[in-house]
Structure formats: structure tokens, C-alpha cells
């Protein structure tokens, strides 16, 4: 059901400025078209009949902030989404990473963790997991709690299993989880070397050096200026010869990184120059 539009452009600006000045979350450089939809959606789900009501509730109930942030950001994800991308990671990137004694990977905007577990499976199958560390970050503490549990709906497993096989997986995908009623609980060994932590791409700085940074379908929610700012953050966080992986429709073309990175064939993976 399409949510009716209840918020005007000026009102959205007011709301974002409130959230920034009162709570310190800066969404002012997020793409407005998407934010508008998310605000309309939250008004329907949480039964606010007007912008004024939403604004009042948000400003006077600090405990509502976490839900607000979680709902106005998009947390749709799946395991092994775009299997061709994961195949390219397996075939082209992991063999390179394997030449390092210790592998650090940053999954920026990991949401509920499906991609982190996919990455752990890839590393395990390449026999690299025991010397890898995956930093999976998101600005929403709530989704990170879910991610750390490694419990996903069983109804998704058919799709994930197909994706996994298309990505070049040769194991029985169901060997990675225990089915229990309507959920699948992933092997805790898979999360042993994942660090789930909050990090806001807008306001937080680089916190380590990585050989691979994966940030897929996050930048589409930012305006161009913020996209460039985040590209700089990734650049500062990547070793030379490190890899940067983006979503199927994202690119570093036209960005400040363009000249210092080389794309791997047609994949959305770029390698930093020496």
C-alpha cells in the first residue's frame, strides 16, 4: 500500500534540523526523495496523523529516537544478494587477500547482518576465516543486536540457498544453520570473527586500515556531496592495493577517487593503486 504524502519539503528540513540539533544524528545530506517516503511510512506505521504530531512525539520522547532512526533508514538486505558479486569476491578478491598474514574487512552499513554472515561463509570456504576479522558497522544499534544473534526467517532460506549456489558455493547451505520452527540460527562459529559496532558514515571517522571495504546500497541514500565525503573516508580506511566494493548501481566514477582506483572488469569492485 502506497503511503500518502503528509510532509512538505520545508517540514522535512525542520524535522531533520531538529534531529540533528537535539540528538546529533545528521540526515540533512540524505537523499530527500527517499527520506520523504520513509517519513510518510513511519507516520502510517506509528499512526501519526500529521507532521506536527510526529515532530512533537520525537522531540519529547527521546526513547522514540532509536525507532525513528531505524525506520527512516532502509534496512532491507539479503544473504548473497547479487550472487555474481559474491562470485567475483570468491574468485578475484579473496585470493589476493589470502596473501596477507591478517585480513581486515569493513562492512559499512551492514544492517541486520546478512552480508556479514555471507562474507564469513566465503572466508571460511576459502580457508581464510581464522586469520580474518570482519568489522560490521551500522548507525542503528537495534539492527546490530539482531545481526549479532544470527537468526533469520526460515522462509528466506530457499532464496539464500539459491543465491549461495549461484555465488559458487559448493556446500549444502543448510549445514550453516539450525532450523528451529520458523527461524534459522546460523552457526556461532560464523560470527566468532565478526565485530558488530555502531559507526555513522556521516559523522564518524576512519577507525582502522582495511584490505577490503564493502558498502553496498548505502550511498544511494546520500546526496552527491555526502557520497564524496564517504568515499574519502573509505579511501583513508583502505590500505594501498585494498579493495572497495559497492552496490550493483553505485560507482566511484565522477568521484574524487576515480583516478586512483582501478575497476575489476565489470564488477562493482575497485582496487586502490599503490
Amino acid at each position, binding site marked *: *500500500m*502506497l503511503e500518502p*504524502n503528509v510532509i512538505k*519539503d520545508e517540514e522535512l528540513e525542520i524535522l531533520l534540523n531538529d534531529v540533528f540539533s537535539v540528538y546529533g544524528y545528521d540526515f540533512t545530506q540524505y*537523499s*530527500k*526523495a*527517499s527520506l*520523504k*517516503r*520513509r517519513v510518510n511510512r513511519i507516520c502510517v506505521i506509528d499512526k501519526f496523523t500529521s507532521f506536527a504530531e510526529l515532530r512533537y512525539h520525537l522531540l519529547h520522547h527521546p526513547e522514540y529516537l532509536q525507532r525513528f532512526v531505524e525506520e527512516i533508514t*532502509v534496512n*532491507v538486505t539479503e544473504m548473497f544478494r*547479487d550472487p*555474481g558479486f559474491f562470485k567475483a569476491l570468491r574468485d578475484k578478491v579473496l585470493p589476493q587477500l589470502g596473501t596477507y598474514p591478517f585480513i581486515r574487512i569493513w562492512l559499512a552499513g551492514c544492517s541486520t547482518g546478512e552480508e556479514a554472515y555471507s562474507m564469513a561463509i566465503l572466508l571460511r570456504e576459502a580457508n581464510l576465516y581464522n586469520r580474518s576479522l570482519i568489522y560490521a558497522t551500522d548507525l542503528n544499534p537495534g539492527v546490530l543486536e539482531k545481526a549479532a544473534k544470527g537468526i533469520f526467517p526460515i522462509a528466506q532460506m530457499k532464496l539464500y540457498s539459491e543465491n549461495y549456489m549461484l555465488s559458487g558455493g559448493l556446500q549444502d547451505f543448510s549445514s550453516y544453520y539450525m532450523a528451529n520452527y520458523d527461524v534459522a540460527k546460523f552457526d556461532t562459529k560464523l560470527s566468532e570473527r565478526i565485530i558488530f559496532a555502531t559507526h555513522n558514515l556521516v559523522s564518524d571517522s576512519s577507525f582502522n586500515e582495511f584490505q577490503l571495504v564493502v558498502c553496498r*546500497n548505502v*550511498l*544511494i*541514500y546520500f*546526496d*552527491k556531496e555526502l*557520497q564524496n565525503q564517504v568515499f574519502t573516508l573509505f579511501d583513508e580506511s583502505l590500505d594501498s592495493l585494498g579493495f572497495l566494493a559497492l*552496490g*550493483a*548501481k*553505485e*560507482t566511484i566514477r565522477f568521484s574524487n577517487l576515480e583516478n586512483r582506483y582501478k575497476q575489476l572488469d565489470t564488477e562493482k569492485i575497485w582496487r586502490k593503486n599503490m
Partner: protein
Amino acid sequence: MASDRKSDSKVELLLMGGSAGSLKVLLSLLPTLRQDLAFPVVIILHRKADPDSMLDVLLRNHTKLPVLEAEDKMTLQKGTIYLAPPDYHLLFESNKLVSLDYSEKLNYSRPSIDVSFQSAALACRDKLVAILLSGANADGVEGLKCVKSADGLVFVQDPDTAEVAYMPRQAIVHVKVDAVFKPEHFPGLINNL
């Protein structure tokens, strides 16, 4: 053609949405578009989430206008046809930029026609023209209502000429459409906007 729009209004964007049975009619309509169209055309079709889809190539073979798959934060140019990429919603910013969005499917669809129509209506108001073609679900009908309430123009393919009539029929029942057109009348409708 029934239209109550002001004579000074200029079309900034033409959207075409369709589902089952719409590709065939689209391929018959595209060659009839004039080459010096004064606005961009954006096509939202229900399609499989297949990254290797050749739909843009297929469309390109049926028009002399340039055909591009829309990319995130791309600026829309007049006389160019854009195709919504598979598995993303296509949204419109105020300054002729498009944004991609990977939020929940709507009407079991991503891209959803409703989502794009609503977003474009908010961005372009009465400078928007939206067309709904053949299809088997009601995606697009709510979006057309948004276009209408922003004083945009709404055209719907004549259900009798549609391979699957459900979608245009729903639109005619629920929305005050400006014109119901047969494919042969499409060039007259669009090329004079």
C-alpha cells in the same frame, strides 16, 4: 482530449509504467516518439531482478532516441529515454536528479510504478505526464492518483487494446484520467505535449 491544465504549463517529465503485456505495446509506441522531445521519458516496467537483463538493448533497437538505464543521482536530459533498473525503486529529487532506493517491495514489485509516480508527482507537480499501460496487478493506480492530485496529466492505455486489461481498467475505475488512448493515437497524444 480532456485537459484542464493551464496553457502556460510546460511538461518536464513523461513517465510510462507497465507490467504484463506492456513490453510489446511499448516497443510499438517508442518508434513513434518525435526525436526532438522537449522532456525526458522514464519507463518503469515490472521486470525480473536479473542484472544481465537486455531490456535496455531491446528498447534501444526500437527508437532513435538515446536509451539509458537510470543510475543513481543521474540528471535527466530532455529527448532521452531512461529505464528504471531492476530490483530498485526509482525516485525523483527536486532538481531533475533521480535516486535509487532499495526499500521494501510495493505491490510485490521493485521497481514499483506507484513509488515512482508518487515521487515524480511530488517533484514535478503539474509538469508531469504519467501513462499506464497493460498489466496484471494494480501497481500504478495509487501513483496515478498522486499525479492527478498534483495537477499532472494522466493517460491510460485503452484496456480493450491491452494484452492484460486489469491494470489500465483499475486505473480508469479509480482515477479521473485525462485520456484513454489506443496505441495508434499515442503519437498524437505525446508528440504535441
